[in-house]
C-alpha cells in the first residue's frame, strides 16, 4: 500500500541530500537539522528558573514533615520570625483561608474519592516531605537556617505503606472515607468464555516499582506581582494548563496571571503538575508584595516531586495450544500516594487500553483500583500507564511462549495484527490506523543476530557457564498524541487534547511561529522551524519559534504524552496552510489573476504557466504596507489554528536485548540492544534518535537500577542521588537503533510521536532477557529493579537450581522489606 510509496519518497529525499544535511529547497522535513536550541545551552546563556533575579526578591524555604502520617498539634514559627533576615514565617493555618486545594483534573469515576489537598498541611500530614511551614528571608541561607527555629508538634498516626494492607478492613485510614480512591472497570467481549476451558492459562503478578522521575533540573518557582497582575516563572512542562488551574485554585483572575516556563531542564512527566510550591509562591508574593523564589534541592525533590509507576499488576492470558490468545484479564492496584494530584488517577487508565498490545483477541477485562497510602502522590512519568501495560503483556506473552515451548518471537507472530489488517480496531476499541509489526521485527532480528545469540545461549547452557546469556523481546505499541478531546471527555478528563499554533509573517519576510507546546529538551524550536520552512517555502533560519510564556503564547495544552509533534506540529502545519491561503489571495490580487491560477512552490506564488510571481516575503511586505489589498482583505497574512486530533497515534516497534547474567553475583550486564521503532514519518531523524536513546535509557533504568524505597514507617530511603541510582554513561550500553516508516494516516504529517516509545518498549525487553537467561534454573520472574541481590536470590530460591550457595536469611533487612 502507500507505505511502499512513502518509503520510496523518503529514500529519494535522502538521495537529494547533498551529504551535508542540506537537501534541496522545500525538503527540511526529514532532515537531520542541528538544533537551534543548542546555541544557548552549550554556552551557558540559559534562563533556568533559578537564574531569574528580580529586584527585592525574597527566598522561600519549606519545613517538611519528617513523618509519613501524623496529626499536627502545634506549629510555632515565632522564633523563626525574629531571626536576622527573616521577613515572614507561616504555618499551614496561616494559609487555611486562601490556599484552596491542589487540583485533580481527572476524576475517573462518578464515586471517586478526591480528598482535600491543601498546598500546606494544616491539620494532618500524609507523607514524608509534605510542607508544614515556610520561611521567607532575604537570602536562601537565612531561609534555610530559620527552618530550624520552627517548632512543630506531631501526634504520630500509623503509616500506610503497602497497597494490599491499605485495603484491609482494619487498615488505618489515609483519608476518612477509606483507602480505596476508585475502582474503574472496562470489559469487551466474553472474557469468561475466553477463559472457560482455555487450554492454557497464564496467570502472573508483576510489581511496577515506584520511580522518581529525576529531571536534571530541580524544580524552581519565582513569583512576583505589581499589585494588579501576577507573574509566575516555573520549571514546568505545562505553563498553559498551570495558568488555568492556578487561577481556579488561588482566585487570581486568569487574565491577570502570566505563567512563564523559561528554559526547563527536563520533565518526563514530573513537571506536568500543579504543585504546592507554585500555589504558595503566588500566595506569598500576594501577601508580601515582593518577588519570591523557591528552588528545591535534589533531596527535597526526591521526597516531593510526584513519583511514578507503583502498581501491582495481575495479568491472565487464556490461549490455545498453538499459542493464539483468546483473552486477557487485568486486575491492577495502583498506588495513588496520599492525594490525587493533577492526573494521578488517570495514569492507569492511559494503560487500560494497551494491555492487549499488538495482539488480536476476542475478550478483554480490566479492573483498576486506586489506593491511598501515606507516600508522595504518584502521577505521570514517561509513558504514564503504557509502560506498565506493555511490561505486563510482554512479560506474560513470554511466559506463554515458555509454557508452550515456543520461541517468544513465534508466539508474537501468531497473535499480532498483520500489516494487511490495518486499520484495525482492537478488542479495547481503539483503531490502530497503521503499522507493520512484521517489518520492524524482521529488521530487528537481522540487526540483532538473533539466531547467533540463541546458539551462543545454548552453548553456554550446555557447558554450565556461570555467566548465562538471555535474549529478551518486546514488541510494543502505544497510544499517544494525546488526545482527541471527545475521547478525553468520555474518560472524564477535565480538559481537551487539542493544540494551538499561530504563524506570523513579519514585514521583512521572517516568520514567527507561536506554539502551545512547551518544550523542555525536545527540540520544538528546530522541528517546528523545519515544518514551517517546508510549508511556507522560507529558509529554516528565517523561522523563530516562540513558546512557554502565556503572554506570548496565549493558548495551548503543553507538552506530555508524546503529543507535541502529533498535535502541536500538525497545528503549526495547519496554520501555515492558512497563511498560504491568504498569501495566495493577495498574490492573485497583485498579479491580477484568479486565485485558482496561482501555483505555490519554493516560497513563490506564480501565475500558472508563467514566470510572473511574488515571493511570500514580498507578499508579507505588501500585506504590511496594506497599500493595495483585495477588498475586505485584512492587512495580515498571519493565521492561527487549533488542531484537535480524530484519533490517537500508535507508534510501534521491536526491541531486542541480550543480557549476560553472572549467576554467581547476580549482576546483569546488557551485552547488546537493538531497537527498531516505527514512529511514522520523521521530521528530524537526529531528534528522533535522541528521543529513542533517552527513552531506552530510562526504561533500562527501571529494569535494572531505580526504585523509590520506603521503610515500614513510610520514610523514603532513597532521598539522594547516592541512593536512588540514575545510570551513568558507564552503566549503559550503546544502542543500535533503526526505523521502519509506516506513516500515520490520522494526520497530514504522518507522524506518530516518539517521546515515550523507548521507555515503553525497553523495560520488558531487559527483564525478559534476564528471565530468559535463568529459565534453566527454574526462574520465572525477577522483581524490578533486577538488582544483583534479587537475581542471585531468584536463582538460589528457584526450584531447579543447580548446586549453589543458598541465601542464609530469607530476606535482607531493608532491600526487600518495607515497600510491599
Amino acid at each position, binding site marked *: 500500500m502507500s507505505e511502499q510509496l512513502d518509503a*520510496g519518497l*523518503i*529514500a529519494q529525499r*535522502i538521495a537529494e541530500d547533498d551529504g*551535508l*544535511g542540506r537537501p534541496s529547497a522545500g525538503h527540511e522535513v526529514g*532532515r*537531520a537539522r*542541528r538544533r537551534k*536550541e*543548542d546555541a544557548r*545551552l552549550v*554556552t*551557558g*546563556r*540559559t534562563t*533556568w528558573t*533559578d*537564574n531569574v533575579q528580580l529586584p527585592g526578591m525574597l527566598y522561600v524555604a519549606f519545613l517538611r514533615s519528617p513523618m509519613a502520617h501524623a496529626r499536627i498539634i502545634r506549629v510555632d514559627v515565632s522564633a523563626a520570625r525574629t531571626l536576622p533576615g527573616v521577613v515572614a514565617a507561616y504555618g499551614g493555618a496561616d494559609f487555611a483561608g486562601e490556599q484552596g486545594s491542589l487540583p485533580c483534573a481527572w476524576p475517573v469515576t462518578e464515586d471517586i474519592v478526591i480528598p482535600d489537598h491543601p498546598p500546606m498541611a494544616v491539620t494532618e500530614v500524609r507523607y514524608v516531605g509534605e510542607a508544614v511551614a515556610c520561611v521567607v528571608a532575604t537570602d*536562601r*541561607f537565612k531561609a534555610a537556617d530559620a527552618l530550624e527555629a520552627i517548632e512543630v508538634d506531631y501526634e504520630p498516626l500509623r503509616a500506610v505503606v503497602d497497597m494490599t494492607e491499605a485495603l484491609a478492613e482494619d487498615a488505618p485510614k489515609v483519608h476518612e472515607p477509606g483507602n480505596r480512591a476508585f475502582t474503574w472497570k472496562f470489559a469487551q467481549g466474553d472474557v469468561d468464555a475466553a477463559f472457560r476451558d482455555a487450554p492454557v492459562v497464564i496467570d502472573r503478578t508483576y510489581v511496577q516499582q515506584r520511580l522518581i522521575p529525576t*529531571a*536534571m*533540573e*530541580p524544580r524552581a518557582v519565582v513569583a512576583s506581582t505589581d499589585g494588579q497582575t501576577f507573574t509566575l516563572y516555573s520549571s514546568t512542562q505545562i505553563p498553559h494548563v498551570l495558568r488555568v488551574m492556578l487561577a481556579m485554585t488561588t482566585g487570581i483572575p486568569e487574565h491577570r496571571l502570566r505563567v512563564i516556563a523559561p*528554559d*526547563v*531542564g*527536563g520533565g518526563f512527566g514530573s513537571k506536568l503538575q500543579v504543585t504546592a510550591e507554585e500555589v504558595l509562591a503566588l500566595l506569598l508574593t500576594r501577601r508580601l508584595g515582593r518577588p519570591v523564589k523557591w528552588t528545591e*534541592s*535534589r*533531596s527535597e525533590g526526591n521526597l516531593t516531586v510526584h513519583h511514578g509507576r507503583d502498581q501491582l499488576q495481575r495479568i491472565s492470558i487464556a490461549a490455545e495450544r498453538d499459542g493464539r490468545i483468546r483473552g486477557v484479564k487485568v486486575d491492577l492496584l495502583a498506588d495513588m500516594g496520599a492525594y490525587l494530584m493533577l492526573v494521578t488517577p488517570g495514569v492507569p487508565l492511559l494503560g487500560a487500553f494497551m494491555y492487549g498490545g499488538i495482539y488480536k483477541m476476542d475478550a478483554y477485562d480490566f479492573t483498576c483500583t486506586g489506593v491511598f497510602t501515606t507516600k508522595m502522590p504518584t502521577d505521570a512519568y514517561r509513558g504514564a500507564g503504557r509502560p506498565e501495560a506493555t511490561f505486563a503483556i510482554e512479560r506474560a506473552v513470554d511466559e506463554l511462549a515458555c509454557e508452550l515451548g515456543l520461541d517468544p518471537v513465534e508466539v508474537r507472530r501468531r497473535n499480532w495484527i498483520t500489516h494487511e489488517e490495518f486499520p484495525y480496531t482492537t478488542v479495547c476499541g481503539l483503531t490502530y490506523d497503521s503499522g507493520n509489526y512484521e*517489518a520492524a521485527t*524482521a*529488521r530487528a532480528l537481522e*540487526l540483532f543476530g538473533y539466531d547467533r545469540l540463541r546458539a551462543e545461549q545454548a552453548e553456554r547452557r550446555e557447558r554450565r557457564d556461570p555467566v548465562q546469556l538471555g535474549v529478551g523481546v518486546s514488541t510494543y505499541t502505544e497510544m499517544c498524541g494525546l488526545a482527541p478531546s471527545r475521547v478525553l471527555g468520555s474518560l472524564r478528563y477535565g480538559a481537551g487534547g487539542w493544540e494551538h499554533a499561530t504563524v506570523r509573517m513579519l514585514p521583512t519576510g521572517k516568520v514567527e511561529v507561536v506554539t502551545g507546546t512547551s518544550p*523542555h*529538551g*525536545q527540540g520544538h524550536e528546530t522541528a517546528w522551524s523545519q515544518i514551517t520552512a517546508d510549508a511556507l517555502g522560507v529558509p529554516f533560519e528565517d523561522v523563530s519559534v516562540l513558546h512557554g510564556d502565556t503572554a506570548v503564547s496565549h493558548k495551548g495544552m503543553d507538552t506530555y504524552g508524546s503529543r507535541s509533534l502529533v498535535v502541536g506540529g500538525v497545528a503549526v502545519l495547519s496554520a501555515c496552510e492558512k497563511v498560504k491561503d491568504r498569501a495566495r489571495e493577495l498574490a492573485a490580487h497583485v498579479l491580477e489573476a484568479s486565485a485558482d491560477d496561482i501555483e505555490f512552490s519554493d516560497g513563490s506564488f506564480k501565475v500558472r504557466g508563467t514566470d510572473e510571481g511574488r515571493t511570500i516575503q514580498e507578499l508579507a511586505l505588501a500585506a504590511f504596507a496594506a497599500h493595495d489589498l483585495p477588498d475586505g482583505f485584512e492587512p495580515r497574512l498571519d493565521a492561527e489554528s487549533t488542531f484537535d486530533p480524530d484519533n490517537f497515534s500508535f507508534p510501534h516497534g521491536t526491541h531486542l536485548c541480550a543480557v549476560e547474567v553472572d549467576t554467581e553475583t547476580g549482576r546483569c550486564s546488557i551485552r547488546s540492544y537493538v531497537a*527498531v521503532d516505527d514512529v511514522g514519518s520523521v521530521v528530524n531523524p*537526529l*531528534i528522533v*534518535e*535522541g528521543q529513542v*536513546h*533517552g527513552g531506552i*535509557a*530510562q526504561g533500562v533504568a527501571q529494569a535494572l537500577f531505580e526504585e523509590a524505597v520506603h521503610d515500614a514507617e513510610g520514610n523514603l530511603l532513597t532521598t*539522594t*542521588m547516592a541512593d536512588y541510582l*540514575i545510570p551513568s*554513561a*558507564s552503566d*549503559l550500553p*550503546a*544502542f*543500535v*537503533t*533503526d*526505523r521502519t516508516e509506516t506513516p500515520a494516516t490520522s494526520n497530514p504529517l504522518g507522524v506518530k510521536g516518539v517521546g515515550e516509545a523507548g521507555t515503553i518498549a525497553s523495560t520488558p525487553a531487559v527483564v525478559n532477557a534476564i528471565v530468559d537467561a535463568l529459565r534453566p534454573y527454574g526462574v520465572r520472574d525477577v522483581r524490578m529493579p533486577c538488582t544483583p541481590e534479587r537475581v542471585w536470590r531468584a536463582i538460589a530460591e528457584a526450584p531447579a537450581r543447580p548446586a549453589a550457595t543458598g541465601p542464609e536469611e530469607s530476606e535482607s533487612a531493608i532491600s526487600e522489606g518495607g515497600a510491599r
Partner: protein
Amino acid sequence: MPRITVGVDGVTYEEEVEPRLLLVHLLRDRLGKTGTPIGCDTGNCGACTVMLDGRSAKSCCVLAVQADGSEVVTIEGLARGQEWHPMQTAFHTEHGLQCGYCTPGMIMAAIDLVRDDPDPSEEAVREGLEGNLCRCTGYATIVRAVRRGAREMARGETGARTPPETGPPPETEAQSGAGARNGAEARNGAEARTP
C-alpha cells in the same frame, strides 16, 4: 567573613564570603555566572562541573573559600568571542544534549578527559564521564560528541572553532534512518549509530 580573590573566566573578583558559601553559589548568586547549574546535593550529578586551576571539579563540593587564589573556568568562559570551543561545537553537531541542564558540566568533564586522553575510546569516554549524569540522551550521542570534540581539539585551535551566528556548523554524515525497505542503506544508518 573571609575575603577571597578568585579568577573566573578571565576576570578577577574579590569577595567577602560566608565560609559555607559553595563555589557554585559564589558563581551563580554573587558573580551572576548562572551558566553553571546545580543538579544535586551529594556531588553525584556533575552538572556544576567547572575547571578549577585547570582540572575538573564539582563546584558544589568546593567551598568558595577553598577556591581562594584559584582560577576558575566555567562553560561561559570557553568560547573565544563568538567562536565556540570545539567541544561545544561537537555537542551541537552530534546532538549530545536535549534539555541541556547537564551540558555545561558534561562539556567541562569532557574537556578534562580529553586532556589526559586525546583520542579516547568509547569505553574511555563512558568511564571518564561516570561522574556526570544525563537524564535525556541515554549518553550515546554524548559519547559521539566527546570523541568528535577530541578529534577537533587535536586538530588544533585554529579553524576548529565555529562561529555560532554565521551559519550552521559542519553537518556531517546525515543520520539516514531510511526505513527498513532499503537494506543496505538502513544498515549503514544503523552502523553509523553504533560506535
